[in-house]
């Protein structure tokens, strides 16, 4: 499948394999400014004969303004060491890319400003290196999530056309096996349009929480309904809309491009709201940031469950989450409401016990310039790896839920961390 691909790339995409000489020269030029040499650590860190089981995958974006591409790096261990994109890493085409892992394959999706583009796919070879599988074509999508062995993607118009397109990617065949439309004005049925914040598989169904948006009038992402949450429930794989469920105790679930709904081990789904709806650029949600529940097998919000996060977290609200297992979440907390801000303080939140603890050991808030939102969890109930960029550089922090502490691990030179994932060696 991947053999003839290298030729294609050369002709069609003009991929240039950079020879060692070149990046030594480049690095030497940088060394002249006291930064880097052409040292050993730029070589692949593979020791031949070593029995490789798995590798962490880190996507890094340079902190600069133009000509920005992501680089995929591999690391054996996230708890210590240094890794760099200087002369190292697989360049990804396109400034804004998003990553998702399913079926032990790592997918790199282009956010192409509405244009279709190639999705590149990697698996891990026996040397612990990323090996490219065949590309396939996809549209620019706003949400994408694993469902069974597929990746379900949706392209959602924010104005104009009323149909969102969905695509089901078969991760074995690396092809789109089905596609269709869903009318988002009909889904919202309040005169606005449903803009899905994310998709989550719950049981055999797909739950699609959405924000209601005006989609017009110089206030595309504003809404006149700031204090309601909705989830569109789709049958899978038919993608028939079964129902839309609503809850007026919270504002919309998740945020733009952010997963706000998670199925836990017993089949219940927990969802958070940041309460950051706006109208004409002014924050209008009055309900606090909170978690709610949809019980397994039921397609209604559980009116007996409501966890007001702001009450227990000094007024901070949840902006993002990483699920750890056993009801524990790492939550990203912020004290100023904003539709696109990412919380720089971490908390451990248990949805079963409705408890919240601040995490210590993360960088000082005023020094943080970026927090990674696509992070990796061991799903052991306690361990997650979260990326932070401070004024001094980027690091992976290992979070331990039991002690509610974070410790600084791998240093990533060359930019911010956009995603942390893990692949086992392919069969």
């Amino acid at each position, binding site marked *: 499948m991947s053999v*003839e691909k290298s030729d294609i790339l050369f002709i069609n995409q003009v*991929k240039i394999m950079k020879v060692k000489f070149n990046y030594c020269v*480049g690095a030497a030029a940088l060394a002249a400014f006291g930064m880097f040499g052409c040292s050993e650590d730029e070589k692949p860190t593979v020791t031949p004969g070593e029995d490789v089981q798995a590798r962490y995958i880190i996507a890094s974006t340079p902190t600069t303004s133009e000509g920005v591409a992501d680089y995929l790096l591999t690391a054996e261990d996230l708890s210590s060491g240094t890794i760099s994109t200087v002369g190292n890493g697989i360049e990804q085409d396109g*400034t804004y890319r998003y990553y998702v892992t399913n079926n032990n394959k790592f997918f790199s999706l282009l956010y*192409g400003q509405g244009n279709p583009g190639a999705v590149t796919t990697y698996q891990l070879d026996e040397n612990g290196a990323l090996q490219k599988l065949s590309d396939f074509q996809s549209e620019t999508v706003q949400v994408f999530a694993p469902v069974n062995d597929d990746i379900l993607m949706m392209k959602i118009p924010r104005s104009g056309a009323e149909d969102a397109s969905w695509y089901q990617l078969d991760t074995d065949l690396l092809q789109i096996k089905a596609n269709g439309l869903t009318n988002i004005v009909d889904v919202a049925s309040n005169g606005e349009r449903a803009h899905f914040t994310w998709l989550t598989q719950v049981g055999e169904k797909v739950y699609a929480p959405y924000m209601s948006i005006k989609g017009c009038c110089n206030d595309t992402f504003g809404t006149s309904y700031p204090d309601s949450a909705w989830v569109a429930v789709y049958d899978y794989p038919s993608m028939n809309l079964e129902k839309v469920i609503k809850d007026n105790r919270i504002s919309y679930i998740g945020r733009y491009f952010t997963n706000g709904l998670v199925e836990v081990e017993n089949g219940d789904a927990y969802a958070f709201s940041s309460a950051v709806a706006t109208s004409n650029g002014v924050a209008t949600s009055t309900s606090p940031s909170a978690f709610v529940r949809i019980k397994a097998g039921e397609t209604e919000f559980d009116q007996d469950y409501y966890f007001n996060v702001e009450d227990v977290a000094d007024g901070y609200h949840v902006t993002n989450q990483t699920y750890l297992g056993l009801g524990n979440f790492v939550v990203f907390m912020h004290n100023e409401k904003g539709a696109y801000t990412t919380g720089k303080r971490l908390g451990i939140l248990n949805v079963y016990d409705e408890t919240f603890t601040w995490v210590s050991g993360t960088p000082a808030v005023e020094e943080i310039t970026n927090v990674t939102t696509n992070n990796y969890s061991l799903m052991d109930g306690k361990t997650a790896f979260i990326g932070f960029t401070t004024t001094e550089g980027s690091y992976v922090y290992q979070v331990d839920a039991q002690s509610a502490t974070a410790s600084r691990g791998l240093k990533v030179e060359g930019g911010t961390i956009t995603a942390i994932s893990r692949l086992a060696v392919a069969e």
Partner: protein
Amino acid sequence: MKHTKELILLYIFLLMHFPILAQQVLKGKVKDAKGEQLPGVLVRDTATNKGTVTDLNGEFSFPLTSQSSLTLEFTSMGYQSTQVNVNPETSTYLQIQMEENAQDLNEVTVTGKSIVKEIKEKAFNVDVVDARKLHNTTLDIGHALDRVSGVRVRESGGVGSTMNFSLNGFTGKQVKFFIDGIPMDNFGSSFQLNNLPINLAERIEVYKGVVPVGLGADALGGAVNIITNQAGKSYLDISYSYGSFNTHKTVINTAYVAPSGFTFQMNAFQNYSDNDYWVTVDVADINTGKYYPDQTVRRFNDTYHNETLITQIGVQNKPYADKLLLGLTVGKNYKEIQTGARLVSVFGDWNRNGTILMPTLKYRKEDLITKGLNVTLNANYNFGSEQNIDTVHRRYNWFQQYLEYDTPGGERSYTLYKYQNNNALLTANADYSFGAHHAISFSNVINSFDREGTNELFPDQNLYEKPQKSQKNISGLSYRYQANDQFNISLFGKNYLQANYFALAYNPSGNYGDVAYRNEKETFSYQGYGFAATYFFGDNLQLKGSFEKSYRLPEPEELFGDMVNLQGNLDLKPESSYNYNLGASYWKTMGPSHRMEIGGNVFYRDAKDFIRPRLNNNQTMQVMDNLFNVTNIGVEGELRYFYKQSFTLGANITYQSLRNNTQYEEGQTVESVVYRDRIPNMPYFYGNADASYTFENFIKEGKRLVIGYNLLYVHAFYLYWPSLGSDKFGVPEQLSHDLNMTYTFGKQNRFQFTAECRNIFDKKIYDNFSLQKPGRNVSGKIRYFIY
């Protein structure tokens, strides 16, 4: 300098001996001893002192006032002047042979300079394209500029495709374009580099880094001034070409200038192309997205055509005006959109169109009120519009298969958005020379913009389209001191003033149809300055130095957005730069037949607050921002060799080191990993070479065949930062060869036929990552002209 007036010698044949009754003109031809036709020979009636000059073919016609005999004197530099007695009753056609001045012809220095040469010798770092030499080709102005050192014109496809012009590392709007000194701001898509034929221009001046105040604009890194035919007299020039990919191009340029000074000028041109050239691409299965690798397919949604008519009417050489012309430019273009930023993004129905409807006024008067005071005034207003049409709800692949949906939608973004910018422009220049050594000039440009847009698909939204106005006023003052023939210097200052008015419309209540406005106003004022100086060492060597602190003000589009893909940013600051040039040129004639010109230039640019696109917060639109600083140090060199009139060989080469000069990214205390790295996705080493050979008297006496060759080289470059990653994307080296052959024939050599072949070796060439340009393509052009 040896001075001139060489004279004497004669020789006359009266070949035709048959009598003629009444004759109005006396015709003839002047040749040298070898039978070469002699242009530019002065023919004078010694009695009346009236005269004429021989044309390019050595021919002349002399109006007769009576049938009595007269004495004609023939004078030309380097030849002995000759007197001939003519009896018009017996002579109808004179054959004159002039002898070279045996004494010192080899030491004669021609002091007359072409305008091209005069401009090149200015203190500014300027390159001049003599467009007349390219009138036989099918080039558009963009491609002609691509042959200038320091310039790279990158295009995304075939005829009519988007062109990105770069000059010494500055790109896009950082370099300003002018036509006859009038800024081409907001002329719209119907009047651009990619659709203006080279035949429209007489010459093109490329000012690098330092721009004279006469070209009043906020250019950050230079300016290009396209000079059209100035219509001093009547002429006609018609051409038509046909070529690969069903490409048709027609140009009609004509002017009528009456003895009274009444002037009518018309330029009409048309381009049409299917642009259905072959590309090699991975074709996605329309249902599964699976790629069929390495397929060779034709482009199928890439038709481009434009039609433009420029008319001007007025007077010349009147006491109140040397030139007063009222004009109207009318045009439109249609462009199908085949791909997005990558070849794999393919569209089948999306298209755009644009119109231009622009009344113009041109006024020029020399010695107004007092001798030495020259005044120029230009005004225009563009009523043109642009529209984006994406209303077919389909998804295409490169096999032209598609999936169609029966609901309203588009291929990319469902729209019929249409806007017009209502751009008004007023430029005024005055220069005044006093004494033998001093000149001052002043220029002022007022530019106003008032966008109106509608989307007929969503009429409710039109309520929220609100006034977006911007006004720019740029004035410049310069003083020029001409010490002597060897040295002159110009000092100048410029003032940039911008006022932006923006009424942001929104819906205050959420109720249908409610609208309210937030008003914003911003004004900026900045000052730039610079100088340009030159010194001649003897007759063969010139040194030039120039400097400018320049600004480019944000364009209205960058401030207000385009309501489609670009979000406005009212906080944009201007880009600024310190530009330095140091150059030398040397020319030498070796013996009677060899001539050589060598030029070189070193430049340095130190620019701040580059305006570049980034994605907005929710990554649905682009927004322009002041993002980073760059420096660029570079060299460019040019060499040209002439052998008599028959052979020329030229080459130029440019190398630039464009570096990221942003040491700390916002919020970072550690140095940026790409600080001082080479700016990616910019060609940095490139050049052109050309050669041409002229066969005189080819097939027939007096007919001429010219064979020309052109080579383009661009070194490979990386798409993203060179220092990062080990497995990278890039644009490979480009090497393309073009050949053309022009045969000039017909009565008085008024016909020209040209055959052209571009990209002879059918190489895959790319200017932009993954976007292939056309392979081998051929065209033929026929041209008829009377000057």
